């Protein structure tokens, strides 16, 4: 018996962004080994050019409403997938621009860095489109392999090796859990596609299978109790890799989580709401409390990232279309604020070779621009109006209020107060303390682009979020039939200028 494969032109069109990126990364790799004398910055700008082309392609997909499924529903291109792909490609562009100075300091393997970043981005783009468990497994592993190498990239640095080793061992263990969970679910239902495994009866095998899959995805996003790799990995990895790792994989994993919970597990909502409420409370509380004690800015941002994931899980726990919108919007605000903060960390780290918070003393004296940018990004992460983080948190809490998750919201509000403390400590050090060495700091043009992009995004999303809200609402249109209050597109009444 033969199975036939029919791939028409329209089908191949759906794969166009990934095919473009694959061809482009082959070009980058070829130029790296074929022209060894080429300054490796050119490879960075070449990668950015390619990614800009992919981004334009994705924006065209979004505006023209191109979509469909391929390969027996394994690969799906819908507005949700296009949103996450744009998210990932945008992050990658900014990360590559922020890495240019850092990579100049490597002694060797400079070109492969850009290649590995592009590979991980490609893997995460595939993750955003994965619609069945086999694709989830293979794309998740693909995107993580690039990161294993990137985290351990500084071969001479003990911290980097340790970070890579810890990340790798815990990562493959999570992959083992994922494989075990997928095999249990397949054994119970006989199918792999998300819409097919939505079975009405909760047999023990199915429950344990989904719990294991959630554990593996929780590892990827860094939710408590699967967060143990985050502080050491973020601390030891090269800072641009940390920036990339703290944003993009979380977004891609949330694409999968949203599909899994809203499509496959829609029938068991009361059960998983409890699970997610627990994970959210633990993540927020643990992340915020431990962040207070940190002396190293990368570890501080690592724990703050755990707390931010706890916030996003509130949206997932709400389980409605509005919760899904809130998750997507919050991810956008998190992208700009976190990437901006890490860009400042990379810039300061390049210039003074240290990541301790003590060395941020008096940053205002040395570079008012950097200090101001850091202030904006940290306040956005904390959720202060009129910045993007405030709208993000407001949206998430509105989604949770509609579902009646009052305990969760109370814990969330307390955690906002706690998180303000450690963000403001850094701000205080920058503005009020005296610097040990008052020489001025300047940053290079690519880094300026990244910081300006972060500032623009944070301010724009905070003051005028309506276009972004329309975009995320359109992206989750397929979930309009979820159980929950009427999923009308909310126009937020802003306390200012509304």
């Amino acid at each position, binding site marked *: 018996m033969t199975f036939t*494969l029919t791939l028409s032109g329209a089908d191949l069109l759906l794969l166009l962004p990934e095919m473009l990126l694959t061809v482009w990364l082959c070009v980058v*790799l070829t130029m790296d080994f074929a022209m060894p004398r080429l300054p490796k910055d050119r490879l960075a700008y070449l990668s950015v050019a390619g990614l800009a082309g992919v981004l334009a392609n994705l924006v065209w997909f979004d505006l023209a409403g191109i979509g469909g499924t391929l390969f027996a529903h394994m690969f799906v291109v819908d507005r949700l997938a296009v949103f996450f792909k744009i998210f990932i490609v945008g992050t990658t562009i900014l990360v590559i621009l922020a890495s240019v100075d850092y990579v100049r300091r490597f002694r060797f393997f400079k070109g492969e860095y850009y290649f590995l970043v592009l590979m991980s981005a490609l893997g995460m783009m595939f993750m955003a489109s994965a619609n069945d468990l086999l694709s989830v497994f293979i794309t998740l592993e693909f995107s993580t392999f690039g990161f294993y190498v990137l985290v351990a990239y500084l071969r001479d640095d003990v911290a980097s090796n340790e970070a890579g080793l810890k990340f790798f061992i815990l990562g493959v263990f999570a992959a083992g859990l994922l494989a075990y969970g997928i095999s249990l679910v397949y054994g119970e239902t006989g199918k792999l596609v998300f819409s097919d495994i939505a079975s009405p009866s909760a047999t023990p095998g199915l429950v344990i299978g989904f719990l294991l899959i959630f554990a593996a995805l929780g590892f990827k996003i860094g939710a408590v109790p699967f967060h143990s790799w985050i502080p050491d990995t973020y601390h030891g990895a090269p800072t641009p890799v940390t920036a990339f790792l703290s944003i993009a994989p979380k977004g891609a994993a949330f694409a999968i989580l949203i599909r899994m919970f809203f499509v496959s597990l829609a029938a068991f909502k009361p059960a998983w709401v409890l699970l997610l409420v627990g994970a959210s409370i633990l993540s927020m509380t643990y992340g915020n409390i431990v962040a207070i004690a940190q002396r190293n800015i990368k570890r501080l941002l690592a724990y703050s990232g755990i707390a931010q994931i706890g916030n996003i899980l509130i949206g997932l726990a709400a389980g409605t279309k509005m919760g899904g919108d809130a998750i997507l919007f919050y991810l956008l605000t998190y992208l700009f604020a976190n990437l901006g903060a890490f860009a400042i960390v990379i810039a300061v780290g390049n210039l003074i070779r240290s990541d301790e918070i003590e060395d941020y003393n008096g940053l205002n004296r040395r570079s008012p621009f950097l200090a101001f940018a850091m202030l904006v990004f940290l306040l956005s992460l904390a959720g202060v109006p009129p910045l993007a983080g405030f709208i993000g948190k407001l949206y998430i809490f509105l989604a949770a209020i509609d579902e009646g998750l009052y305990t969760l919201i109370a814990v969330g509000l307390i955690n906002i107060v706690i998180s303000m403390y450690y963000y403001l400590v850094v701000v205080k050090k920058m503005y009020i303390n005296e610097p040990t060495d008052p020489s001025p700091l300047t940053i290079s043009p690519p880094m300026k682009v990244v910081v300006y992009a972060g500032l623009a995004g944070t301010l724009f999303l905070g003051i005028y979020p309506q276009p972004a809200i329309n975009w995320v609402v359109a992206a989750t249109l397929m979930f309009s039939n979820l159980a929950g209050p009427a999923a009308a597109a909310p126009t937020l009444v802003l306390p200012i200028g509304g």
Partner: protein
Amino acid sequence: MTGSEPLLDYLGRYFSIVLFIGIALAFGVVTLLISYLVQPKYPEAEKLSPYECGSEPFSDARMPFPVRYYIFAMLFVIFDIEVIFLYPWAVVFDKIGLVGLVEMLVFIGLFLMAYVYAWKKGALEWD
């Protein structure tokens, strides 16, 4: 995939392999066994001491292991898997037509790129 023929008939086709493994094992075991049984046993302290050209051995035989062995083993695994994928493709080649050829060319093209990369970067040099 339960078969239409009884399991013993199916496994019977592998009997020659089992026989082969059995003879290989028996060959090694029987020769050692017979030599153990037939050898004269008159141990003395002089005969039992380690033979190291006159001096006692003072450390184990391990030396720092060159990492290039590991790189070659790793490259071997990767290309081995490429061959594994080629084999079923070759078996169904007549059924999957031009599309099948193109997809395998893409697959091999990516490996070719990896190979040229390894070559140009000197990973295939022995020293």
